[in-house]
């Protein structure tokens, strides 16, 4: 009997291990189910949407007015709003983010780096609603003082602040890419008599380029998906324009605008929510896949 004891004990343990393994597998499937859920929810109402609106109109109409009597469903107007904001944000975030990364990885003494990095982490942790408040109460008045034609809601203010929001992401991911460049490459350049600037711009940045570009692409995706800043500061005027002083509406801001009303299940307004959400989802998914592809495809192995 005593001889059998450990074997029995082991069997129950194995049974327990199997139960635990199954539970953990269940946990891991939640993320898959989330993706399936997103695609299913979006697809279902989007199909309903396209029963009433033709895909051709959706892609070519130059007006977006689902709540008016004369309904138009031209996604281009919302897309152009999102692109205008993203373009403006990248003009702020990419140069400043890359320069910050170069400074941190190549120039900054250790003590300075250890002070600046946590500050950038704080900047990255500020909620977007706070950035929205900042855009409306600080940046917009300055812009209107410089350009009197600018509206209370304008794309420029939102772009600048979205740029500030994604700057820490560009800086931190680009810095990772540059820190991964091996010491020996830098030493080789120094041995040839290069200055620090030449090492940074002609050796380190080209060597880390894939990671840097991936950080840019990810930041753009974040800018397209950003919601509260553009809702508060860019306004709710869907139109095709390249003038940053005008009010525009992005895909995300439209979703918020509709959500704020009491939307009835099964109406066309309810369905536009899903059609716009689907467009946004597919666009950011595409961009994220490109970013991952760049990192994998062009990863330099040292």
């Amino acid at each position, binding site marked *: 009997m005593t001889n059998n004891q450990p074997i029995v004990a082991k069997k129950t343990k194995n049974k327990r291990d199997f139960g635990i393994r199954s539970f953990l597998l269940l946990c891991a499937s*939640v993320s898959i189910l989330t993706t399936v859920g997103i695609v299913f929810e979006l697809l*279902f109402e989007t199909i309903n949407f396209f029963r009433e609106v033709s895909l051709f109109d959706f892609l070519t109409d130059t007006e977006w007015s689902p709540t008016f009597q004369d309904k138009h469903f031209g996604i281009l107007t919302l897309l152009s709003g999102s692109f205008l904001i993203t373009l403006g944000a990248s003009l702020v975030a990419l140069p*400043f983010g890359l320069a910050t990364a170069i400074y*941190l990885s190549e120039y900054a003494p250790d003590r300075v780096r250890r002070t*600046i990095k946590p500050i950038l982490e704080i900047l990255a942790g500020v909620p977007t609603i*706070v950035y929205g408040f900042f855009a409306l109460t600080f940046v917009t008045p300055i812009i209107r003082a410089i350009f009197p034609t600018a509206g209370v809601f304008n794309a420029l203010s939102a772009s600048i602040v979205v740029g500030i929001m994604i700057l820490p992401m560009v800086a931190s991911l680009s810095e990772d890419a540059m820190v991964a460049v091996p010491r020996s490459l830098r030493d080789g350049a120094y041995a040839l008599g290069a200055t620090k600037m030449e090492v940074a711009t002609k050796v380190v940045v080209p060597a880390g380029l894939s990671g840097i570009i991936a950080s840019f692409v990810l930041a753009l995706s974040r800018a397209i998906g950003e919601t*509260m800043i553009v809702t*508060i500061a860019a306004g709710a005027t869907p139109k095709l324009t390249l003038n940053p002083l005008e009010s525009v509406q992005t895909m995300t801001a439209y979703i918020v605008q509709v959500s704020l009303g009491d939307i009835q299940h099964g109406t066309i307004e309810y369905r536009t929510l899903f059609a716009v959400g689907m467009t946004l989802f597919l666009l950011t998914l595409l961009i994220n896949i490109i970013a991952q592809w760049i990192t994998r495809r062009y990863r330099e192995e040292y």
Partner: protein
Amino acid sequence: MSSGRLQLRKTMDKLSKAVFFLATSFGIIALAILLYNIISQGIGWLDWQFLTSFPSRFPEKAGVKPALIGSLWVIGFTAPVAFVVGLGTALYLEEYAQKGRFSRLIQININNLAGVPSIVFGILGLGLFVKNLGLGRSILSAALTMALLILPIIVVASQEALRSVPQHLRNASYALGATKWQTIWRVVLPAAFPSILTGVILAVSRAIGETAPLVVVGAVGFMSFVPNSPFDLFTVLPIQIFHWTARPQEEFRYIAAAAIMVLLAVLFTLNALAVYLRNKYQKRF
């Protein structure tokens, strides 16, 4: 090489250092201005009355009580759900899964979920929890939506923590006759726990600051009562801030700024806690 050219290169080098440093200070200056802008507007309105009052049409009587309590309710459900599922996923991927197609699929999927805009999670929450599962515009719908949103962050942080536990600790445990789960429960998890906790705290602070998904799920802009069940309507701090910011009257901006100070105080406390844990328990094996 002529010395004139060398001089030029050295000057360029000095100049570039200054340019890169100035560019770096842009982010820091922006943060400083942002904080100053908020504190200077909000400080006069932040007092005990503000923390314990309901929202009001009159700015001087308004407060954040339902929003504060609503945030607590939502996080109270979000944190445990996201923690259990997130850590479970990480344990499965790091300790159990064969490195095959299925675990690769889960991994790619988690990376992709991390890049999905938060407002799309709001649409998922609206469709799945509010409508399909019939939970309505409730605290529970909001909490589950938030849990799915921060899940990828917790999974990735937990995976890194588990990976940093060296293999020889596991082998030592197996050599003593421990089963896989005993090894994980008594050796791996205690060693990895501080880093896991740090990741969870950072993810939770992300959830506390999120606004967009909850607007879609159906947060209320004006609450005149305090929720007392998970099926009640809800509002949270960021939503309250959003509604005050959107008001045209200037006074509401000041109380929005005061509410932002409350929100930032909560977030900075959590972040400080995360940094403290990281430094205190950071182990080198």
